[in-house]
């Protein structure tokens, strides 16, 4: 991981190159996170990629409910030559969940972005095939949001055995 000063330097460099792209940095337990502005995330990732972080290890979403902006998309980047990891976090609000896709830079972002769309509802502009990947195609709702109910069947005891699925006739 770049240490705290390395992270600040990287953030400064990126802010100078693309003004307004870095909203902040976090450095917690050895993990460096750059908070990026959603419209400029693609540019930030492109510059990091040319700097050496050429491997996209993970692309996933987090729901920061109830803090706004609510939906976060995290990019975990890996530099294989220097064995260095850096993360980029872009937070989008739930009423306008749009962010640019990175499938043009990394082809392997195809399925992870579809998963983030499926589970959180973040739309990736420019994605070749944005459909649900894990849930059935006609499912409504985005399951991994914090306000989506966990669902499930009620636990069967003998007193409520009859009202529930029980015997299939």
């Amino acid at each position, binding site marked *: 991981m770049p240490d705290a000063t390395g992270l600040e330097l990287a953030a400064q460099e990126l802010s100078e190159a693309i003004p307004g792209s870095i909203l902040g940095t*976090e450095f*917690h*337990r*050895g*993990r460096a*996170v750059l908070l990026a502005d959603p419209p400029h995330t693609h540019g930030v990732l492109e510059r990091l990629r040319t700097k050496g972080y*050429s*491997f*996209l*290890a*993970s692309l*996933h979403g*987090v*729901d920061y409910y109830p803090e706004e902006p609510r939906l976060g998309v*995290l990019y*975990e980047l890996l530099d*294989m030559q220097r*064995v260095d*990891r850096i*993360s980029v976090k872009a937070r989008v609000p739930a009423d306008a969940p749009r962010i640019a896709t990175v499938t043009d830079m*990394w*082809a*392997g*972002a*195809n*399925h*992870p972005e579809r*998963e983030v769309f499926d*589970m959180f509802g973040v739309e990736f502009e420019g994605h070749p*095939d944005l*459909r*649900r*990947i*894990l*849930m*059935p*195609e006609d499912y409504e709702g985005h*399951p*991994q949001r*914090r306000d*989506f109910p*966990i*669902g499930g069947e009620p636990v069967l005891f003998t007193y409520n055995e009859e009202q529930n699925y029980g015997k299939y006739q």
Partner: protein
Amino acid sequence: MSLTEEYRRRESSITFEAEPAGEGETHELLTLNIGPHHPATHGVLRLLATIEGEVVRDIKPIIGYVHTGIEKTAEDKSYWKVIPVVERMDYVSYYFNAMAFCGAVETLLGIEVPPRAQYLRVLHLELNRIMSHLVWFGTSMLDIGALSVFFWCFRERERVLDLFEYSSGQRMHTRYIQVGGVIEDIPRGFAEKVREFCKEMPTRADQYADLLEKNQIVIERLRDTGTVDEQTLLDLGVTGPLLRAAGNPWDLRKAHPYSSYDHFDFKIPVGTVGDNYDRYRVRHAEIYESVKIIEQALDGLPEGPHITTDRKVALPPRHELATSMEALIHHFKLVTEGFRVPPGEAYYPIESPRGELGCFVRADGSAKPARVHMRDPSFSNLQALVPMVRDGYIADLIASLAMLDPILGGIDR
């Protein structure tokens, strides 16, 4: 909507690039649906293959048939209880799932894992790696048609499961790796049994190689099929034996050692061409290396506690509960509410038998995680199937799928 319209709508996203395949050959493309129930798929994977004659032109994997909402369930349970939930994700390498999660939580908590616990973790992780490769070996050779290898590999697998049962009481999904260490120290006699196993395993692996390596059918089916170059694999986010077969020696155990892997001396098998035969050889060679690691772990097993002594995270030993009031209170708090993790996010990557398995945990200060995401290697590796099977035969598709080693539990989570 009628059935055909529905069907056309679903396959409208498949590219229909009809290249002429040769003189007098047919140019008509057929969409063949393979799965989700098919004798050759590893788990419930559905493939929409666009084929021209016997040649596969395009493929579209459709997943989600084992989606279990593991990550959503994990948000509902305290950290201790998330471990069995997360273990069932990649169901052949369960120690690795637990290790990734526990590693992430330990990073967030900032606690140290005692050296004995680290060595025990490495021991069990490498046993699990051998077991995962045995399962892969058996089932993939079953797809190719070599039935004896299936029986032999599962016979060895039973021995590994006996060892797991010896140390933790369960054959699969053992909850052995806990936050802060391991759940229990190894019993008496375990080390001898593991040494016996380690003495025999290389001979057995030699037997598998004898059976397969000079077999003309295996060579014809695996050699020069499913070749993908290294840069495509890196763009797709592929790690693990697939990347190593293409020539890139990236292994997190060596590059970024965790849990005292740097104390052990082992090699990384790397392939040259990146075809299916190289993938098979890489995984087969990894079995020998894992045996070496296990022997070194047993030889150098340090004394000490098997779990962290921080009572706020790990349960106190039972005998203390009778004498110490603090131990009783800690036990009570840990069992009812669980330990609280200070707010933060952590991403902990490890090297699972399929590639980089990373666990992202976001903690918000309470006793339940706010987000658990497992970066599963098979999820990214599956995208490599598309370039692998393009312009190959259907039989090569089956062989490539077998050599890819997808575990649908990890893909779908």
